[in-house]
């Protein structure tokens, strides 16, 4: 019996090619610049490179003065939210192949927070709003000797909002937040949602009082910019609507 020799077909996979990509970056160094201005940098990148890699390269090879925050590089720490081609994205989760490289790619700081330098903004107003919604468990009654148990269904109610990494992409994409910095912003409401809909928490009244404020959830215009911006895929606008409903019916 003749052995059947299978022919092994080796397809040549093209090695990825690097191409020149131009980044148009909004630079601002308070010591030298009166006003922010745009500057172009061209570097060679692979389609699989991230915008963060590009910024690292520009900083390393072209202009050491470029400043931006980054830490994990994997979409977990939430420090590198920026406005890429006009949309709030994490630089470490945006791949070059998903952008149109025929035109310069614009990169600038997130809007609505005080600009400090290049891509760095003062996050304090953002965290101040976060603190105001009491983002921690407020339990009731005696402390149990064991864990506070919860059914899978109860856990599922706020599962989406546990994913927030506090990157501020949502809050700084909100037109209401841009025009007046008083609004709490979507991220703070997401943080509140996380605890309001937790069956183990009983800080409902306290938080609703905060969110019912003149600058609270009622300023939301359901623009959906926040849902579009969230790098964690949280349905931010939906969470805000759920909080509104809880406020109207005074019940979770």
């Amino acid at each position, binding site marked *: 019996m003749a052995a059947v020799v299978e022919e092994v077909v080796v397809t040549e996979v093209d090695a990825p090619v690097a191409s020149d990509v131009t980044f148009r970056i909004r630079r601002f160094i308070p010591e030298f610049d009166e006003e922010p201005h745009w500057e172009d940098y061209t570097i060679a990148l692979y389609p699989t490179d991230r915008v963060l890699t590009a910024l690292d390269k520009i900083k390393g090879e072209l202009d050491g003065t470029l400043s931006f925050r980054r830490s994990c590089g994997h979409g977990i720490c939430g420090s590198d939210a920026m406005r890429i081609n006009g949309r709030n994205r994490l630089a470490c989760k945006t791949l070059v192949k998903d952008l149109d490289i025929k035109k310069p790619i614009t990169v600038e700081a997130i809007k609505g927070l005080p600009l400090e330098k290049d891509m760095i903004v003062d996050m304090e107003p953002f965290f*101040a709003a976060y603190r105001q919604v009491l983002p921690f468990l407020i339990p009731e009654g005696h402390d149990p000797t064991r864990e506070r148990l919860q059914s899978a269904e109860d856990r599922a109610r706020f599962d989406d909002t546990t994913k927030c990494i506090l990157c501020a992409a949502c809050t700084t994409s909100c*037109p209401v937040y841009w025009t007046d910095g008083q609004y709490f912003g979507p991220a703070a409401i997401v943080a509140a949602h996380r605890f309001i809909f937790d069956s183990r928490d009983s800080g409902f009244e306290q938080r609703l009082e905060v969110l019912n404020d003149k600058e609270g959830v009622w300023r939301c215009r359901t623009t959906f910019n926040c849902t579009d911006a969230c790098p964690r895929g949280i349905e931010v606008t939906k969470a805000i609507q759920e909080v509104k409903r809880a406020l109207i019916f005074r019940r979770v």
Partner: protein
Amino acid sequence: MSAPSIDAPRSFSGRSMNRRNGQRSNFELYSWLFMRISGIVLVFLVLGHLFIMNILDGGVQRINFAFVAGRWASPFWQVWDLTMLWLAMLHGTNGMRTIINDYAERDQTRFWLKMILYVSAGFIILLGTLVVFTFDPNIG
């Protein structure tokens, strides 16, 4: 050298302290609800009004003093028009108030824009209400 003092974690910020002692109001909640409800009611009132005025037998051609006088002789149309006037004016005014809050940056600008808004809205509501109630069909 003394140790640096560290603020207690999880303390309320000044602003939320004020809020807790100060005025709690459901005004924004009710205004939000009002916008949704009046919006739905207005869809029926306004579309109905347009249909009667512009399409139903003869449309605009048949509208004259006698037609209006005849309609307002019935309390039903008086109530219809009055509700439409009030809801439309309050809905529009509240919408404009929201826009002013969003876009006017300086407190002074905000204040004066809102004053103009409220005065003109009040004027139109009063005038309209007055006409609906005191309309005299024998005037012509």
